[in-house]
């Protein structure tokens, strides 16, 4: 993997995302940057343990990557231009070609299966399938909902209000001049085919980041898409993050463990974190006795030592102190 091309970080609402899976890999492998997966995995959409793209980066990670010249910031909202009419026509025709190919393949496959007695479905299965198809055909008649049985009564409204249904569309179109309501249900293809909801926008011809990219934080700040770091506390966090990163550590968010970062000796996929790090704004910042108690106790419970990382803005350096339960008395 080459590190020469900067990674494009898509920024919207002051958050930076990575959508390209290769970039996710590159960040992790080459730059020791993990981020947090923030999207739903489409094939495992009922759980929160494994999540999918976008990869959301911590602001400290973004600052580091941009300052090191490893990444660019893209104003994502503006990089999505409106497609021109020809571009849209092309997109439609490409899409339709894929659908047609899909249907042709399916037909071919079915024909093959019918010919091959060994691989043909058992009679029972065929019967069942027929039944299913009939049922579907029936339910499509009144309102598209193939799932209508599952919908509580009041939600039928959802379908009723959508005047795109066979049988209803004519009359509704008459009383509703509303343009977007008058679309007619798909008639073109009777057999089902698979639709892909696109994940990243890079496939769109009309997506163009070239005039919306920023190589420095200052430029991004001026464009109003990025404003981190702004406070002394944020500068301290960036300083501490960078210092730990330069020493080869991997970092994850540490708020649940009472700090800013969890500090890992290697990729968190394979290694446990050894430290919880909290960034201290300045050498003058006060340290409360209760914090020492808390971090000492927490560390013992979670097998992590607490790191107090004191940022000195003038010297641009970090001093580290670790807290561990001594076990006296």
């Amino acid at each position, binding site marked *: 993997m080459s590190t020469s091309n900067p990674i494009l970080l898509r920024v919207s*609402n002051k958050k930076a995302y990575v*959508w390209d*899976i290769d970039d*996710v890999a590159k960040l992790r492998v080459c730059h020791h940057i993990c981020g947090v*997966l*923030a999207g*739903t995995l*489409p*094939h*495992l959409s*009922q*759980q*929160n*343990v*494994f999540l*999918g793209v976008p990869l959301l980066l*911590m602001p400290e990670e973004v600052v580091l990557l941009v300052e090191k010249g490893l990444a660019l910031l893209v104003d*994502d909202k503006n990089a999505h231009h409106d497609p021109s009419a020809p571009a*849209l026509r092309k*997109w*439609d025709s490409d899409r339709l070609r894929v659908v047609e190919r899909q249907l042709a393949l399916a037909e071919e496959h079915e024909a093959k299966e019918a010919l091959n007695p060994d691989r043909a479905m058992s009679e029972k299965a065929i019967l069942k399938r027929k039944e299913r198809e009939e049922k579907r055909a029936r339910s499509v008649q009144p309102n*598209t*909902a193939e799932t209508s049985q599952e919908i509580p009564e*009041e*939600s039928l*409204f959802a*379908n009723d*209000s959508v005047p*795109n249904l066979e049988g209803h569309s004519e009359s509704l179109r008459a*009383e*509703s001049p*509303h*343009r*977007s309501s008058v*679309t007619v249900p*798909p*008639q*073109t293809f009777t057999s*089902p085919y*698979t*639709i*892909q*909801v*696109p994940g*990243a*926008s890079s496939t*769109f011809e009309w997506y163009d980041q070239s005039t919306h990219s920023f190589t420095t934080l200052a430029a991004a700040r001026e464009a109003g898409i990025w404003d981190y770091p702004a406070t002394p506390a944020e500068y301290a966090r960036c300083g501490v993050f960078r210092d730990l990163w330069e020493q080869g550590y991997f970092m*994850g*968010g540490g*708020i649940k463990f009472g700090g800013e970062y969890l500090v890992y*000796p*290697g990729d*968190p*996929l*394979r*290694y*446990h*974190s*050894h430290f919880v790090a909290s960034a201290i704004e300045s050498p003058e910042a006060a340290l409360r006795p209760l914090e020492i108690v808390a971090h000492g106790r927490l560390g013992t*419970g979670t097998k992590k030592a607490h790191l107090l990382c004191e940022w000195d803005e003038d010297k641009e350096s970090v001093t580290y102190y670790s807290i561990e339960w001594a076990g006296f008395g």
Partner: protein
Amino acid sequence: MDDALEVPRPQLPTADVQEEDQSSGDEDGGLDWTKLPKLGTAARPVIPKRGEKDFEPAAGGGSGLQLHVLDRSREAMLEALRAGRSISSKSISYGLWYPAIDRVHVITARGIHFSTMGHSATRAPPSEGMGGEAVDAQSNSIPGSKLPKRLELLPEEALYLVERGALFCYKFLSNGLPLVDSPNFEMTSPGAPMSVQQAFAEMTGRDGMTLERYQVYAYLKRLGFILMRAEPPTAEYPVAALTPLLSNRPLTQPQTFRGKLTTLFSRFASNVLSVFRLSRRSDWWKHLQLSRYRTSADIFQSLRFIPCTYSVPLPLPSVSEGKQASSSKALPFALSASPYKVFFHVYKPSTPFRKTAPPAPDFYVVVVNARTTPMPSIQELTALFDILPVMPLPPPRKRGVQPAVKNPPNSPPTDDPATKAPPGISRPSSTPGWPLSALTFLRRLLFFLPFFCPTPPAQADKLASKPTRPPNPFLALKTGKKTIVIAAVDSGSISFFRFGQGVFEEWPMA
């Protein structure tokens, strides 16, 4: 000695929180993606436990074996991330995103999602000069005319469905480009097709939908919860019922003037009572006259004179005294700008739910950005509690059916501790003479004077003796009277906390 006993005891079976804390979801990157079922294998995926990890990489970035295993883990993760959003043409829904109004108009609704998502909206036909844009019906509706309704999604609903691959969204193009008379959007797109990336970029940050709020929305949706906005974003948005639907609880809160008066009166009565309580301390320099008490419980009771209640408003710095609070800081009382607002009403998957008439929510959820927002102040928490109904106690665990604390039918639910006080606490009912210290309380009482409505004081006594004492005080103490859920989101990691309104005063230990 207690110290020795109070070292962490993770092995205890009751260590609920502990278990959760150690769960694999807690530590980012602690997941073993290699244990994920391969794409297209198991229909019902099992969430694997955290895999075994090494302490640290061997010198030089890891031994051969370590690097090999790491590569495998990374590959498994990336493969899972590459999974596309494929859906049959027979089950996909279609929508059109109108950035100007922050709504997606659902053109084709399929699947069970719409039984709990989306709402009906009246939209006036597009007017000339608006670029064909639909207009909010309120702005230019013609009285009496019947306007068409359509199904609309809020940004979070649309984004969630797009993310799951259940909705194909087109962006409405204001340049009038497509396709006004496009008869068939299967052939011709009715707008610019949107990727998930574009949906994230355009739909977050709109109409109150911060990324943090969206992440909480999606997190709870993935677990099957039903979410509604607490604050109706438009007039047509369905409003939740006010109180939990308990069989023997009045369905409506007494929001009437009379109801308010009753509430205020009982507050007043409780203040009078606390003055009486003080009477035992008429001279603040004297010790208790111990010989007047029969048991130590009596002594404890006579010591209860520090007001502990949410029913008295938090005193504000008085402006009437002519001196403005000379603070350079913004007053913490400027609650209107507070980020601590209930944003979602959340329903358990098992709660019977009607989209058009949502019941009272199971949870009230506030979402804040943990990086930029500190904990709520007591003023903010009080304001949150003020709008919540009193929650019934959850049924006790592992025991027979216990009656939950309930208000007797027809008695107005109030915040007043007097109405909920167990009969074990007998409040002194009469005292000869008004103690001097009561004068200090008169100022407090002035809060209520404008609303004061003379009602026989006997009623307050009656109120005080009605409910029965449920068996387990700890459950009540740990639950609190009202509960608000606050989700603090820090760069994608969500911490949920329950903030309960404490009721220690109602459950004395002695």
